[in-house]
């Protein structure tokens, strides 16, 4: 008779054995030994965590209740492995090139590293997986109870709850021990993978052994078994096509989306090539697993008493036949299935929970300044461990609360449908660049809500969580919102109904929102990286040896830090490690130090990317590149600012130089001007002083002499006064302080006035005018204009050197300007002097007529104020000046 004690002993030995295997594998991996760890066979076997206790026990139950329908849960993954091999390879490639740690990480990475999305996926995954963990605990508890019942020697039945609790604690411990031994960037767990590969062998062997026993031991051969199958109800059960297709698709989707499957398939993957083997080996494994399901179910239904739980046929058949050894083996198979699933699921979920929920919160609370890696590391490990314990505990609590009464298979399907909601966002993200974060969020949200409402909450039984009226009349009394007949679709299978609606609405909202929303730059970049991953990523490079890496690092550092600095830095590091020479071991400490050193020169992201390029052989992720680009942009901006500043400074310097030149020039001009004024003032004063002294001191002056010298003094005094008047006038004009008194007047009158003041045609000086052209009414400062005319006429009278001096005043109009030309018949002004005659103190030739040389300068200033001008007209026979006046404000008459 099977004794419970033997079972417990075997069980414990098995667990110890698993510990040893995991420990050995970890050690081997740590020391770089054990290439067998990286074989495709191990990879394929690790995939078998798909076959949990649900498949081990539940498939038979499934078959016993629903016939061949159980095949769907094997068919889905098989189709995926064979038909979607390309997609799987893409996922694995992305996982490696983007250093993906979980399915939440993958989805959030694809949609621009959105943590919102990651948190959402994490929550969904936890909600979807918890019932499944409960399922595993329940199966272990149930199978244990079955043994206990069959064991006649034991007087008291073990408490089911305490069994479940002990199992949960044990599993949590194992997972914490091997799942969080080290924080590997790649999240690989060699020990765990090895242990689940072993468990995969155990469960297959156990199921095959039971199968062989049932067919040849109980039924008495293949033919007899087939007869029994035909005789049983299994053969008669008809499965509706919709359910077939629905369940196959569901299990296919779940195979891709289950967090634990993602963990072993993508995260733990060592080599893309392993997928090639798995593509045929895993379907073969599944086929073997399902080979004896129908025979066991048929024989179980036939042999065992009515009312036996078909979920436990695998265990109860050998027990009933008294084959204790086989029964224990079978128990170990189920135990293996359950534990491997819980371990991997706990690792996968804890990674998600700690990376996307706990760490961001912790970083936020500590102010996000966690640069000290030791700190983060410890917190991350602690978060990971607590998450594992929490997740397993959650499963245990769910088991306690749900009472564990529901058929195992039902919970499994509910769970599958939950995680299948990831599919549109996941697949869409892999193949469609237009998929956006908002689309993914909406799709997931809608799918999750529909799943909760139509499948998850109702799975607790009607009127347990949702009231019965809801099922009958729908939400808010709207019949089209009944959870099991959404939009009036009635009579469908509950699971298929929920899967159809949730996936349909999920996909539709994902696509629609993606189309109408606009992705952020990071999303677009990530999208391109994901969709075109095969173009972008090469297969990861090999790891080079220690000192060779150091040398590469040294070469790089010399370029960045400068040779002497880099050599000193490396030598110091080598000395600290107790090594001679310049090349230290590339230990993590050293790399971190170097990275910090380099980041001072090139920015943190660039330094990280450079070092990981050399040491990790890892490809630089888009995020790294973005960070590098950001830094570069900052540096560029900074240097642009500097450049702008230096340009500004150059501009300022130039302006200052110009201003200085101007001031110097002004100073020179001022000196010249003062010197000129001094000369012009002192000259008449000299005469005045000299002659007044003569008049005073000389006694014997003739009356003629007295008269002559007196008049010289008088003339010079007038000259002095005129000079001062002119200077003041010019100063006022130049400073623009002059006020114009505009009046209307006729040009003819004005010229008459000027001619009269200058002495008219007195002497032999003739003035010729064309009075008919002078009938022009002007609106201007008439006195100022007259001043100009007087000056010009006086000049002609003074300087015209012709024998019969003659001045011609000619008036004409050109466009809107009035031109008055004063031309004499003298020798004119030499060409080289024509440009300077309007300057102050300029005098032509040696003529000494008492002028200070300010007249024309004043004329020029006046004409400028009047809006006109005065120019020397070359090419006339004598000296010729043209006065220009604007006509537009005046009206010409006659």
């Amino acid at each position, binding site marked *: 008779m099977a004794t419970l004690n033997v079972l417990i002993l075997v069980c414990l030995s098995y667990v110890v054995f698993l510990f040893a295997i995991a420990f050995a594998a970890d050690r081997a991996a740590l020391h770089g030994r054990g290439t067998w760890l990286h074989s495709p066979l191990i990879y394929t076997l690790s995939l078998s965590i798909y076959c949990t206790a649900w498949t081990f026990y539940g498939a038979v139950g499934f078959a016993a209740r629903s016939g061949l329908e159980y095949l769907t849960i094997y068919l889905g993954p098989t189709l995926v492995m064979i038909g979607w091999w390309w997609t799987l390879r893409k996922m694995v490639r992305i996982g490696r090139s983007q250093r993906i740690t979980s399915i939440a990480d993958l989805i959030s990475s694809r949609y621009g590293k959105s943590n919102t999305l990651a948190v959402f996926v994490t929550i969904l995954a936890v909600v979807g997986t918890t019932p499944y963990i409960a399922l595993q605990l329940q199966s272990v508890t149930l199978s244990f109870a079955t043994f206990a019942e069959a064991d006649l020697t034991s007087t008291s039945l073990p408490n089911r709850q305490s069994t479940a609790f002990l199992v949960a604690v044990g599993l949590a411990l194992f997972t914490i021990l091997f799942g969080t031994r080290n924080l590997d960037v790649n999240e690989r767990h060699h020990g765990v993978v090895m242990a689940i590969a072993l468990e995969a062998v155990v469960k297959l062997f156990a199921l095959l052994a039971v199968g062989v026993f049932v067919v040849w031991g109980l039924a008495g051969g293949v033919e007899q078994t087939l007869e029994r199958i035909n005789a049983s109800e299994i053969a008669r059960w008809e499965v509706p096509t919709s359910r077939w297709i629905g369940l196959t698709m569901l299990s296919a989707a779940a195979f891709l989306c289950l967090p634990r499957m993602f963990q072993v398939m993508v995260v733990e993957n060592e080599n893309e090539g392993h997928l090639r083997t798995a593509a045929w080996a895993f379907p073969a494994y599944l086929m073997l697993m399902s080979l004896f399901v129908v025979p066991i179910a048929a024989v179980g239904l036939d042999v065992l008493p009515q009312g036996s739980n078909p979920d436990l046929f695998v265990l109860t058949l050998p027990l009933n036949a008294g084959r204790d050894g086989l029964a224990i083996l079978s128990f170990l198979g189920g135990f293996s299935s359950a534990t491997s699933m819980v371990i991997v699921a706990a690792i996968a979920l804890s990674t998600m929970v700690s990376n996307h929920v706990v760490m961001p919160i912790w970083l936020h609370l500590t102010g996000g300044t966690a640069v000290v890696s030791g700190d983060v590391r410890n917190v991350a490990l602690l978060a990971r461990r607590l998450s594992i314990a929490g997740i397993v505990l959650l499963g245990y609590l769910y088991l306690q609360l749900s009472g564990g009464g529901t058929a195992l298979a039902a919970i499994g399907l509910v769970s599958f449908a939950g995680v299948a909601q990831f599919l549109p966002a996941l697949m869409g993200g892999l193949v469609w660049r237009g998929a956006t974060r908002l689309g993914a969020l909406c799709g997931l949200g809608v799918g999750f809500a529909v799943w909760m409402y139509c499948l998850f909450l109702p799975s607790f039984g009607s009127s347990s969580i949702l009231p019965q009226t809801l099922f009958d009349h729908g939400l808010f009394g709207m019949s089209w919102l009944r959870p099991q007949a959404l939009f009036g679709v009635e009579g469908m299978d509950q699971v298929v109904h929920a899967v159809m609606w949730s996936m349909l609405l999920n996909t539709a909202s994902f696509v629609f929102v993606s189309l109408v929303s606009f992705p952020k730059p990071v999303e677009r970049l990530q999208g391109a990286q994901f969709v075109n991953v095969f173009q972008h990523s090469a297969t990861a490079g090999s790891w080079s040896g220690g000192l060779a890496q150091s040398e590469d690092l040294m070469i790089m550092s010399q370029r960045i830090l400068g040779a002497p600095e880099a050599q000193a830095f490396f030598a110091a590091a080598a000395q600290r490690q107790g090594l001679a020479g310049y090349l230290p071991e590339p230990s993590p400490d050293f790399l971190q130090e170097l990275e910090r050193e380099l980041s001072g020169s090139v920015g943190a992201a660039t330094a990280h990317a450079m070092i990981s390029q050399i040491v990790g052989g890892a490809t630089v992720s888009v995020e790294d590149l973005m960070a590098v680009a950001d830094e570069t942009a900052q540096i560029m901006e900074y240097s642009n600012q500097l450049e702008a500043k230096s340009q500004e400074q150059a501009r300022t310097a130039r302006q200052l130089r110009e201003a200085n030149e101007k001031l110097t020039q002004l100073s020179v001009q001022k000196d010249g001007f003062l010197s000129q004024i001094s000369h012009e003032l*002192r000259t008449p004063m000299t*005469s005045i002083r*000299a002659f007044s*002294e003569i008049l005073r001191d000389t006694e014997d002056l003739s009356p003629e002499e007295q008269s002559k010298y007196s008049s010289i003094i008088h003339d010079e005094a007038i000259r002095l006064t005129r000079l001062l008047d002119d200077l003041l006038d010019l100063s006022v004009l130049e400073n623009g302080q002059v006020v114009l008194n505009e009046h209307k007047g006729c040009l003819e009158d004005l010229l008459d006035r000027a001619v009269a003041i200058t002495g008219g045609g007195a002497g032999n000086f003739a003035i010729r005018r064309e009075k008919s052209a002078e009938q022009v009414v002007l609106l201007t400062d008439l006195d100022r204009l007259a001043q100009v005319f007087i000056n010009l006429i006086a000049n002609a009278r003074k300087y015209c050197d012709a024998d019969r001096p003659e001045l011609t005043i000619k008036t004409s109009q050109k466009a809107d300007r009035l031109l008055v030309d004063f031309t004499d018949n003298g020798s004119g002004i030499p060409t080289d002097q024509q440009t300077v005659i309007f300057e102050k103190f300029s005098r032509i030739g*040696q003529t*000494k007529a008492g002028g200070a040389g300010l007249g024309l300068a004043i004329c020029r200033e006046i004409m400028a104020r009047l809006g006109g001008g005065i120019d020397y007209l070359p090419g006339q026979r004598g000296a010729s000046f043209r006065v220009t006046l604007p006509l537009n404000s005046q009206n010409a008459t006659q």
Partner: protein
Amino acid sequence: MGKKVLLIEDEPNIIEAVSFILSRDGWEVKTHSNGHDAIMAVRERAPDLIILDVMLPGKSGFDILHEIRADEDHAETPVLMLTARGQLKDREMAERAGASRYMTKPFSNAEVLDAVRSLVPQ
């Protein structure tokens, strides 16, 4: 016969005044009123003293002084410079150029006589 003075000046009234003063003091006054050929006049007249205005038409008094000092016959002839520009740098320029005496206009007649007498011992 008195000593010969050559007055190089362009302002007619000043020429008249200086001529009157010096003539009454017994000097033989010759005048010249432009810069171009002033050195020719110096050579022609061979004066005992030259009174030279700084601002002359055609050539500045400083240039003429250079020419006089470069001429071996007249390198030692005393030169009294007259200027209407009273700035310090003009005085310095005159001294560097080799002027024997420098006077700023307007001057008193007595001053001129004193200067002329001290430059040419009677």
